């Protein structure tokens, strides 16, 4: 219950004699105990204590004891007492005292602090404090009777700064260079150098990716792969380029709607395509489409407004003034995107990366050359001959009659039969034709697809596809048996193998393929060829009796041929054209085939990967918007329009009422929340806790800011600096507050255990990514490769057991095994265990804050996970190779891992372990080999195995030191 604790601290710290501040001291009490029933949602007894009217009704200014608010809290009457017994809530004594004092002082009312207009506060006029930022801190410290800590050592400072900006420990050379630089600007230059490093974007992207719920799979039951890593790279690049936060916002929410949107702008919108897609069988796509839209509203609320809007999707928010209508009015902004929980994640966009673009130019040039070269050898006459050899001649004959067993009529025009309207019942078509005299060996039924059928063939509709149960052929009333059959398209479970009457049933037949509008052909051969005279009547019966589909074949033709030589070639033409076949077979052309195919393959390899993106529905297809009562998508309530919540700043009338307008509204200077929430998030990364600890909630139930003025000053400064993250971070890093030693004195343990007032520097355990990256970088293993497909470092087998998903973990090869943590493949239903152990979220939903925990499972990871054992092995080899004396080696290890030399007592302790281990591994060579080589591989010839093994044990200790795992 941290919220109450902070509240409590603040309350005692505000001296009781100071005049009560409603927003900071009273509103939180009312919110905690009263708003659930007397708030925006319920207003029991028509009383709302979150608005001024309710305060006036329930208090008598200046007379606490005569106020109903107090009376009802203090009464012994079980029926009257507030909060009611069954809530289990009871006000604390000091809370009641505060309420009384507030009423006695006139029961003033005020807006919730975070909804108040954001203004730049005066910098406190105090002498102390090196920078403006520090002055805000110093004033508070004085009130607490605390003094700032001295500046930390240069060694600790560079280590802290390196971890904060780049997410890895500094190298020995970097530390030494910084120590040697005595210029005034040394520290400032260091900040600039680190901020300019590409490692910065990788470090800071992790946090954003938690918020964006970025993952490599789609979530839910099947949790299949999703290709969306290009978005992750976009984030890294944007952060490295210091893209202003308002632009960063605009592009992710509405990059596709920008005038002249570039590919990168569209790519940015993958941000809101990180919602989950439910591929589970039997799910209603509309249900999970609306779930995804709701997730977009909730995520947007958390990231930009610091509000838990999600509460209002079932009922009006209990604590914050968001009504259910306002929730669905926000929902309306997001409800016009094309995506609809499809398993292929469409709409998707294929986009080449920069290097792929360069490749494409090259490949296409070569391809063009090759193709024109080949064309020079093309011989039209030979092609004509080839065509004649390959194709059967299909003969339509003349139609005599066409009828159906139902009342529906078949019309015939130019040998194409069409049905007037869709038929719902079982039906049998009977077609009578005559053909020119000759011998015929096969029949072709051609069902026209959308492409050739201007009227849109009903039989290939989305939900009603034809199923031909079986077909029969009669000549002058005598049935002719059929044999081989073949179709170019069929539904997976409706292959034409049952197309002969003897195999037919109510559930079998040849069915149209899903999502294909192309012409469907069914070819059947006659068991004995038909020898026809011109007068012979040929009757073809098409029987459609399946229980599954109601739509019948509605546009088709029937033809015969004397030779089925094009049996394969023609049918296959859906994949390969006749011309392609000619290219492959012609004597002058076939020489090019291999080369051209290779070039084409290279071309397609460089087209880039498919990334799901946001795309707006065309105007005429836009969806109407309604409230979903109780949050259920089928429970349609009143109609709503895209509107922003009324308690927040108004939306500029010139902004369009769509995602683009919304994005602009979010980052408008009038927003009381956006800058506060954003800058607080940056602060939390550095100090381990935000100025508002509940980074995800700035509403009435959220925690109060420890330094409200500083928060506002930072927020306004952030905007004044064009939303530059680098600039605002630099201001923080330059402050003496940041540079303080993080030593925890016994006085501080007493007075400010939690470092709320920042009388010392930050000290806390690093994130999952930082621990991995720093361990690998000390080992010299960390790959500097940026971007690309997610990678798979070691993971024990058997962890992936998603239902209906056979994807497996394939450990990456080469340097991909040693990439930074943020490139690790993230499967939502089974995230990488090391990440989870160190509090990384599953990324199924937006996570604003990883709650740091401290567990034995973490110790097991850094002690025994092969990734960390391998790091210890490589670190050991590096040490042994770099330095010769034991002393030097320990110092090297310490300077590398901790940015400082080892103390003599530390060397003694490590030496003892080293000697014990050396003795052991000299006696047990197999153990030594295992310890030194599994999994890193053979110890190089210039090192002794037992020494490498013993040092691996030592390095395993060093990489588990609290000082190593902690940023201090």
């Amino acid at each position, binding site marked *: *219950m*941290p919220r109450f604790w902070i509240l409590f601290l603040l309350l005692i710290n505000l001296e009781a004699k100071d005049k009560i501040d409603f927003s900071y001291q009273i509103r939180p009490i009312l919110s905690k105990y009263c708003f659930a029933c007397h708030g925006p949602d319920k207003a029991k007894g028509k009383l709302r204590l979150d608005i001024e009217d309710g305060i006036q009704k329930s208090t008598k200014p200046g007379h606490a004891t005569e106020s109903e608010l107090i009376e009802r809290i203090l009464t012994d009457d079980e029926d009257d007492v507030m909060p009611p017994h*069954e809530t*289990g809530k009871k006000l604390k004594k000091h809370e009641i005292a505060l309420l009384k004092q507030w009423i006695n002082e006139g029961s003033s009312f005020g807006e919730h602090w975070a909804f108040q207009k954001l203004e730049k506060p005066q910098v406190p006029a105090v002498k102390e404090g090196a920078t403006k930022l520090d002055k805000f801190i110093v004033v508070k410290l004085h009130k607490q009777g605390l003094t700032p800590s001295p500046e930390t050592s240069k060694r600790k400072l560079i280590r802290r700064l390196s971890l904060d900006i780049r997410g890895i420990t500094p190298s020995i050379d970097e530390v030494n260079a910084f120590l040697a630089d005595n210029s005034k600007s040394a520290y400032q230059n260091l900040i600039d150098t680190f901020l300019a490093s590409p490692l910065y974007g990788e470090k800071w992207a992790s946090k954003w990716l938690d918020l964006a719920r970025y993952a490599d799979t789609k979530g*839910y*039951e099947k*949790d299949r792969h999703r290709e969306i890593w290009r978005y992750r790279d976009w984030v890294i690049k944007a952060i490295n380029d210091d893209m202003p936060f308002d632009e960063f916002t605009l592009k992710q929410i509405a990059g596709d709607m920008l005038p002249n949107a570039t590919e990168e702008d569209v790519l940015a919108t993958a941000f809101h395509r990180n919602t*989950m897609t*439910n591929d589970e*069988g*039997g*799910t209603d796509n509309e249900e999970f489409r609306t779930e995804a839209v709701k997730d977009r509203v909730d995520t947007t609320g*958390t990231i930009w407004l610091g509000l*838990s809007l*999600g*509460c209002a999707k079932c009922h009006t928010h209990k604590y914050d003034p968001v009504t259910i209508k306002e929730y669905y009015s926000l929902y309306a902004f997001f409800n016009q995107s094309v995506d609809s929980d499809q398993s292929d994640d469409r709409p998707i966009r294929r986009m080449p990366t920069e290097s792929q673009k360069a490749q494409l130019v090259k490949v296409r040039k070569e391809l063009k050359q090759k193709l024109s070269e080949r064309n020079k050898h093309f011989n039209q006459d030979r092609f004509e001959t080839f065509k004649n050899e390959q194709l059967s001649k299909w003969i339509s004959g003349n139609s005599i009659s066409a009828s159906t067993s139902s009342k529906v009529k078949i019309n015939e025009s130019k040998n194409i039969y069409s049905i007037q309207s869709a038929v719902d019942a079982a039906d049998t078509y009977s077609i009578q034709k005559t053909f020119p005299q000759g011998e015929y060996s096969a029949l072709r039924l051609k069902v026209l697809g959308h492409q050739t059928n201007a009227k849109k063939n009903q039989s290939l509709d989305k939900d009603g596809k034809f199923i031909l149960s079986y077909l029969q052929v009669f000549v002058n009333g005598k049935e002719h048996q059929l044999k081989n059959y073949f179709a170019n398209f069929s539904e997976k479970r409706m292959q034409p193998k049952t197309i002969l009457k003897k195999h037919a*049933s109510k559930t079998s037949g040849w069915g149209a393929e899903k999502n294909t509008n192309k012409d469907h052909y069914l070819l059947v051969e006659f068991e004995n060829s038909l020898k026809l005279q011109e007068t012979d009547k040929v009757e073809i019966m098409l029987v459609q009796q399946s229980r599954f589909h109601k739509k019948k074949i509605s546009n088709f033709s029937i033809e015969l041929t004397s030779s089925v030589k094009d049996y394969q070639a023609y049918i296959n033409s859906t994949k390969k054209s006749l011309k392609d076949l000619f290219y492959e077979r012609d004597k002058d052309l076939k020489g090019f085939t291999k080369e051209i195919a290779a070039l084409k393959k290279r071309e397609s390899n460089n087209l880039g990967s498919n990334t799901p993106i946001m795309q707006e529905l065309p105007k005429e297809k836009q969806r109407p918007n309604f409230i979903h009562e109780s949050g259920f998508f089928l429970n349609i309530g009143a109609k709503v329009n895209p509107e922003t919540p009324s308690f927040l700043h108004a939306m500029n009338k010139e902004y369009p009422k769509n995602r683009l307008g919304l994005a602009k509204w979010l980052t408008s200077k009038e927003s009381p929340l956006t800058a506060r929430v954003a800058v607080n998030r940056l602060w939390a990364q550095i100090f381990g806790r935000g100025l508002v600890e509940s980074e995800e*909630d700035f*509403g009435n*139930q959220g925690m109060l800011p420890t330094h409200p003025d500083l928060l506002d000053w930072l927020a306004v400064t952030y905007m004044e600096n064009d939303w530059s993250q680098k600039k605002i971070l630099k201001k923080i890093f330059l402050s003496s507050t940041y540079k303080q030693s*993080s*030593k925890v004195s*016994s006085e501080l343990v007493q007075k400010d255990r*939690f470092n709320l007032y920042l009388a010392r520097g930050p*000290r*806390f355990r690093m994130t999952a990514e930082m621990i991995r990256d720093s361990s690998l970088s000390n080992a010299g293993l960390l790959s500097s490769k940026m971007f690309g497909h997610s990678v798979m470092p070691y993971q024990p*087998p*058997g962890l992936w*057991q*998603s*239902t209906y998903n056979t994807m497996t973990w394939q450990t990456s090869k080469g340097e991909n095994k040693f990439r930074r943590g943020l490139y690790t493949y993230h499967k939502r239903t*089974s995230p990488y265990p090391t990440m*989870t152990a160190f509090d990384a979220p599953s990324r199924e*939903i937006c996570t604003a804050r990883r*709650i740091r925990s*401290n*567990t*034995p*499972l*973490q110790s*097991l*990871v850094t*002690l*025994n996970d092969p990734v960390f054992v391998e790091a210890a092995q490589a670190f050991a080899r590096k040490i042994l190779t770099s330095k010769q004396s034991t002393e030097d080696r320990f110092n090297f290890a310490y300077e590398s891992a901790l940015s400082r030399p080892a103390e003599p007592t530390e060397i003694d*302790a490590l030496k003892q*372990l080293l000697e*014990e*281990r050396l003795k052991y*591994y000299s006696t047990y060579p197999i153990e030594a*080999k295992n*310890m030194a080589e599994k999994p890193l591989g053979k110890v190089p010839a210039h090192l002794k195995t037992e020494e490498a*093994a013993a040092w*691996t044990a030592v390095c395993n*200790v060093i990489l*588990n*030191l*609290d*000082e190593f*795992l*902690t940023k201090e």
Partner: protein
Amino acid sequence: MTIDNLKRRHFIKNSGLSLGAMALGMMNANAEEKAHYLTHNPKVKSVIYLHMAGSPSQLDLFDPKPTLKRLNGTLCPKELFEGKRFAFIKQRPTLLGSPFDFKKYGECGMEMSSLLPNLGSVADELCLIRSMNTDQFNHAPAQLLLHTGKPQFGGASMGAWVNYGLGTMNKDLPGYVVLTSGGKFPSSGKSVWGSGFLPSKYQGVHCRSKGDPILYVSNPDGLNKKGRRNTLDTLNTLNRKHASRVGDPEIDSRIAQYELAYRMQSAVPDIVDLKTEPQHILDMYGAKPGFVSAADSAKDPRDVYKANDAAFANNCLLARKMVESGVRFVHLFDWGWDHHGNSKGESLEHSLVPKCGQIDRPISALIKDLKQRGLLDSTLIVCSGEFGRTPMSQRNDREWHGRDHQPDAFSIWMAGAGVKKGHVHGSTTELGNDVATGKVHVNDLQATILHLMGIEPHKFSYSFQGLDQRLIGPSEHPKVIKEILS
């Protein structure tokens, strides 16, 4: 470190509890004051939750429907189909009577399927609820609703909740252990045993049957127990030295974590070692030490299910050992109960039968074994799917049969501490498509479990995103099922 942690640590120091005790998340949420949600004399100390992922058919196992049998093959009444949402059924289907016989078991005469004779032999211990219902009819959301209290991701599992609220009772083992079988994880993935918004130390620890039982519990090759001890001694020395320099109490906590990890390194392999059990106990469960199920490596595990697959039996025996050692919540997930009838492996005839074979003996053995050790007086066993199955056949074009998902009515059973024995609660309509009497929502079930563990479900909350999040959800409706309490 959160203030939450610090606050507790402060309390622990002042109250003389060891750091080790706290290290595994053992301290409960409100240690410094009698937490307002705790009630007197809890009946249940540990819970073993057996989840049959996919949802077995109550109509073939627990809820006999003679009328349904009589009307087998006839078109279902309109009201069972029209205006209803189904996962797969699209056209008015036919009714499907159970192809299996029901029998009366025990002195109480509880009617259950002949597929579960061993479970029948302990019918007098069971408290069967035939009137369950839920809001969700797709697997992942329904499993989340059942175990985390809400159908969306992000919530905390029941096991995480009770450990947050009560803490574990064994300092060398996690308080919330998860065991899986059937070749696949439940549809909702690890989130169903995750800690959600609660601190991650409360998440379920998956204990595996192959490889390290708990991830990375084994030392690297080349470092034996003594070697590990030596490295940890050095690590502790150096960490303590640093603590004296820096003064941060967090370092003491880290030292405690490493020590606890070391103790887990011996405690965990011991507890998962079934070889230490006498033969007659192994036989009783049908457990086989070291058994590796073919289902774990099969492309579709349902194709290889055999009644004598010992994976679930082993997990039942492990559950007993865990509870015996003071693990607070043991969660078993057995996959493969989604019998739609689309394929042989998904059918009542070919798959429900071996699946019942896999669980029947182990579950009855678990009940008997806990009883003979006196543990059934403090342990609650719950067995359920995430929803029920329809009285209608999903399709009729196959030689085998199955049923679609049904959220409106299903059966679960409980046994052990705090609940009535040989008792049947609630009933369903004649065809079993809806609850007739004694309706119990999954949130009511959660409320009941918390209540039995000594937690007032309505008061038990955790503040996150501006809301007092609760296992039983935000509504005031959930209630403890008083009628089943003993």
